[in-house]
């Protein structure tokens, strides 16, 4: 059984390590193999970029060698896939190599797409790449006060990011002693300040307490040098614009016509590509209507690893992915909370505490154990 994993982010890495442990005997005897193909030899802890953007983490803290995170029984190659042949059960890579497989898992992730909104890439600060996060921090350092607008594209990675960056910016400006010179305005695409109603109900009084104004049903249509114009016909001026841009799946997914916007149609329980029983998708690459977040990839990877292993061992999958998501929420002032939910159970976030913030801070270091499949 040749298992091919395309992508070495959180989902692909947890899946590969989990499978390697479940299939230790099969890998040793040669009855199974696991190959991972990635575009890079480095693994980035993406949630750390939020902290880089406000000077709370250094970029070098975000990286590890990908090979060092993987079980030694996993074959790892830095050679990104350029062509998928799902009917023929093979892929072709950038180097021209062909890989045949019995099972394939696509975990290529998503990418920010500020270019999709006219003017946004030129005028807004963002933090979804190392370069952008550093640029944002340097721009914040040079900022001496004025109107700061947070604007959010759809879809986006990490649904908590809009609120988190807002509260972290407040802390940053307070830390510099210029909060009284800042007029912060938060915008959000739907009719409340966050997708999750209990989170929105908590955030509004927090905004009112610290003096953040907000506008809902605000979807960016166009950005000029000094204002954001919305699809809904309103506009807001800014001196400093911070954006959570819309995201797309990776270009190779669109180029191979696997899914609109680079997101692959995926069965919400079995995680297979619709119409293919031996091809699966996890993480941001799915088109599932759930959070694009590291925890989603993590829980999907665990469910899928169990099913692939059980299919090899007993000929059938044993569980469905239940839609589980767990998101930390940095709430500012050294506090945090979290939201946990699945397809059947809505979230019930608790009031933020300093203890949860410290747990998140520790998790930023513990992530590497999680990627190795030890947590």
């Amino acid at each position, binding site marked *: 059984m040749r298992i091919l994993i395309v992508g070495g982010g959180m989902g692909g890495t947890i899946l590969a390590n989990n499978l390697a442990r479940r299939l230790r005997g099969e890998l040793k005897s040669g009855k199974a193999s696991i190959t991972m193909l990635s575009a890079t030899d480095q693994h980035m802890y993406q949630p750390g970029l939020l902290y880089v953007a406000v000077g709370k983490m250094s970029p070098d803290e975000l990286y590890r060698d990908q090979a060092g995170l993987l079980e030694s029984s996993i074959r790892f190659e830095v050679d990104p896939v350029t062509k998928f042949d799902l009917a023929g059960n093979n892929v072709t890579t950038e180097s021209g190599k062909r890989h045949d497989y019995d099972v394939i898992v696509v975990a290529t992730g998503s990418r920010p797409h500020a270019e*999709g909104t006219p003017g946004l890439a030129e005028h807004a600060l963002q933090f979804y790449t190392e370069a952008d996060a550093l640029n944002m921090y340097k721009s914040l350092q040079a900022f001496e006060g004025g109107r700061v607008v947070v604007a959010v594209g*759809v*879809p986006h990675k990490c*649904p908590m990011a809009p609120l988190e960056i807002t509260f972290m910016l407040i802390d940053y400006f307070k830390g510099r002693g210029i909060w009284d010179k800042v007029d912060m305005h938060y915008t959000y*695409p*739907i*009719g409340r300040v966050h*997708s*999750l*109603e209990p989170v929105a109900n908590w955030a509004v009084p927090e905004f009112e307490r610290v003096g953040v104004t907000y506008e809902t*049903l605000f*979807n960016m249509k166009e950005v000029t040098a000094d204002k954001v114009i919305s*699809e*809904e*016909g309103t506009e807001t001026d800014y001196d400093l614009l911070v954006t959570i841009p*819309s995201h797309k799946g990776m270009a190779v997914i669109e180029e191979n016509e696997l899914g*609109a*916007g680079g997101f692959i149609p995926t069965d919400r329980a079995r995680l297979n590509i619709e119409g293919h029983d031996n091809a699966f998708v996890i993480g941001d690459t799915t088109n599932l*209507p*759930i*959070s694009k977040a590291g925890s989603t990839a993590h829980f999907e990877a665990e469910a899928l690893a169990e099913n692939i292993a059980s299919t090899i061992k007993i000929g059938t999958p044993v569980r469905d992915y239940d*839609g589980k*998501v767990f*998101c930390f929420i940095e709430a500012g002032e050294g506090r945090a909370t979290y*939201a946990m*939910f699945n*397809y*059947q159970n*809505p*979230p019930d976030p608790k009031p933020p505490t300093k203890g949860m913030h410290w747990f998140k801070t520790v998790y930023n270091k513990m992530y590497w154990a999680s990627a190795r499949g030890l947590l």
Partner: protein
Amino acid sequence: MERKLVDAKNTFCPGPLMELIGQMKLASVGDELEVLSTDKGSAADIPEWINKVGHELLDSFEEDGVLHLIVKKTK
């Protein structure tokens, strides 16, 4: 013109309206999108957004506890 299904049943985040907004970006003018939602709030918030942006709500009905909203992209 095609009708695309936006199956947002039993999901909480990003939720049916955010799913619709994302799918609307991928659609062409004239396309229809049918949103499936089990979020009672969708009966109000999706029409509110549709009206504000200027798309067209063609139909809405509930069937077996699932709200169906059919929307046409007009611009």
